[in-house]
């Protein structure tokens, strides 16, 4: 059991109702101007996640506000990806719950969950002979029955996703002929074709060149602004996270260290405490982080 004061009172197995959740946030101290629980697309309460022995993530409340871009940041091993796995129901929580639009992600049938919540994983291996168009069409999987062919509606979504991701010119190109960045954009298009209200991305820009890093993040930003899609993204690069996200969640050793708009979260103290880096942080419209040296 975690040492948090209120885990004893709300049992992990009880289905938490609105008052429970409200009470839970009541003693969380990072309430911003709007009530985060009301506007939460994803809400993790008293969450413990791990792989067998010992919790990797153990946090009280974690909120991904609806219609915003939230970035999970933290050093290696701080539990960012694990938390994302908890959000996507890939990992059953050892304790606590993850609510998507107010109901538990674990209790949804897989296809229904996949219609509400998309996940872009880091792993990028697909048959090399597959064309971009075919790949994106697979994004419609959760919307099709076992025997359903691709209908006009599906086609429209595929076209829109390809267009949005800017891979129209690559539509008939097999994946084996794409660069790493183009491939990632193709996978982004596939996740877009899934047409979900919430999109989770696990380090979508790692290993990409600068041009494609920006392209991917711009597509995500556009998706959020034009379609109101809630985005939760794990990012390695704090600077990039601060530029693109509306909210940052800084994780330290499996717990939430700080939560809020980038300018409140990204501070010299955070860099020292969480990342172990002595850095100068300045703001002129957007944050600028100049690391000086690693702290012991």
């Amino acid at each position, binding site marked *: 059991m975690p040492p948090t004061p209120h885990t004893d009172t709300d049992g992990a197995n009880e289905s938490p109702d609105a008052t429970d959740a409200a009470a839970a946030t009541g003693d969380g101290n990072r309430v911003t101007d709007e009530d985060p629980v009301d506007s939460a697309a994803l809400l993790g309460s008293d969450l413990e996640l791990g792989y067998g022995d010992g919790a990797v993530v153990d946090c009280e409340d974690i909120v991904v506000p609806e219609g915003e871009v939230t970035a999970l940041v933290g050093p290696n091993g701080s539990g960012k990806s694990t938390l994302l796995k908890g959000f996507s129901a890939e990992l059953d929580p050892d304790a606590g719950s993850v609510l998507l639009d107010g109901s538990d992600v674990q209790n949804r049938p897989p296809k229904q969950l*996949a219609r509400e919540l998309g996940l872009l994983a880091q792993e990028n*291996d697909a*048959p090399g*002979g*597959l064309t971009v168009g075919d790949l994106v069409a*697979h994004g419609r*999987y959760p919307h099709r029955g076992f025997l359903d062919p691709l209908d006009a509606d599906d086609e429209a979504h595929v076209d829109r996703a390809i267009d949005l991701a800017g891979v129209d010119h690559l539509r008939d190109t097999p994946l084996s002929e794409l660069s790493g960045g183009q491939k990632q954009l193709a996978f982004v298009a596939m996740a877009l074709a899934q047409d979900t209200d919430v999109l989770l991305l696990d380090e979508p820009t790692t290993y990409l060149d600068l041009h494609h890093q920006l392209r991917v993040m711009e597509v995500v930003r556009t998706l959020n602004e034009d379609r109101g899609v809630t985005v939760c993204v794990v990012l390695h690069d704090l600077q990039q996270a601060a530029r693109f996200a509306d909210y940052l969640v800084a994780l330290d050793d499996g717990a939430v260290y700080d939560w809020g708009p980038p300018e409140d979260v990204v501070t010299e103290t955070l860099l020292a405490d969480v990342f172990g880096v002595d850095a100068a942080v300045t703001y002129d419209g957007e944050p600028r982080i100049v690391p000086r040296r690693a702290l012991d």
Partner: protein
Amino acid sequence: MVASTVAVLVGALVQIRYGGYEMPFETVWRALFDRAVWTNPRILATILLGDGLAQTLGVHRDLSVLTDATAVVWTIRLPRVAVAAFVGMNLAVAGAIFQAITRNELASPYILGVSSGAGFAVVVTIVFSLGTYLLPLAAAVGGTGAFLLVYAVAWRGGTTPVRLVLAGVVVGTIFNSLQTGVFYFIDSNGAMRTAVSWLAGSLTGVGWTDVRLVVLPTLVVVPAALVAARQLDVLLLGERRARSLGMRVETMRFALSALAILATAAAVAVAGLVGFVGLVVPHAVRTAVGSDYRKLLTGCLFAGPALVVVADVVARLGLGGTQVPVGVVTGLVGGPYFLLLLRRTESFNEF
């Protein structure tokens, strides 16, 4: 596809034309389109359904009215071609499915322990003289048993392709050792020959009974596999991605494995362990049509029969008087094919 169909037809003609009972092509032609067979549904029914079933259904007719040539063609040579075609079809489809499930293009239908389980069961059946008519059943039961055992070994709150393959190796090794051990208890030479021809995969002496045995599972497997093609495509995108698309990966993987095992068991039950077909056919088809599973499986439905029918022609007629098991020929064809592929292909990037 056209080439495969031509290969099947030519192979079939050669297979029907030559053999112990000599006849020219003209006779073959006349026998194949013998009006006594085609205009008489009862005779056709008796040939296809067998004496027993035809009698039960009340459509039996004595076959002694047929000419010798027609009888040889219809009751001996044609069923052999049919069995070869069905065996090729099932093994190729099963191989294609297993290659997607394990995401490994070197997977064969035997990768999850089926061959060793079936082989062990067959040798045990022969050693304890339980009756050769039980061999197909023993093969199917042994193969399925080994497959379930592999799943049980690999299961730890779920499976992964790698764990399944490793469990297949473990279970396979154990059954192979047992099988080799039991082999020493075979005392008669005849029994030994039966055992060896089973383990190598042979179509010697198959008839319409075997066609009936293999056709039912095939009628299930082929449509089911074609329907499941899209699931296989999604599974190939990686487990995590398949799950995030809303697939119940574990359930789907088991169901697809079971389907492939059904296909394999059907083939093994009538022909024994014909090697290499399930490995080489999907591979060859993939280099031609790409990894889209609907195209790939359709290709396998044609190329699988082509390989086995032609290989069986060679196995039966190639050495003059002696018949060798068809599995020996498929192995001899498959090995060099892979060698060629290995030397000509620069990278294997389909998967």
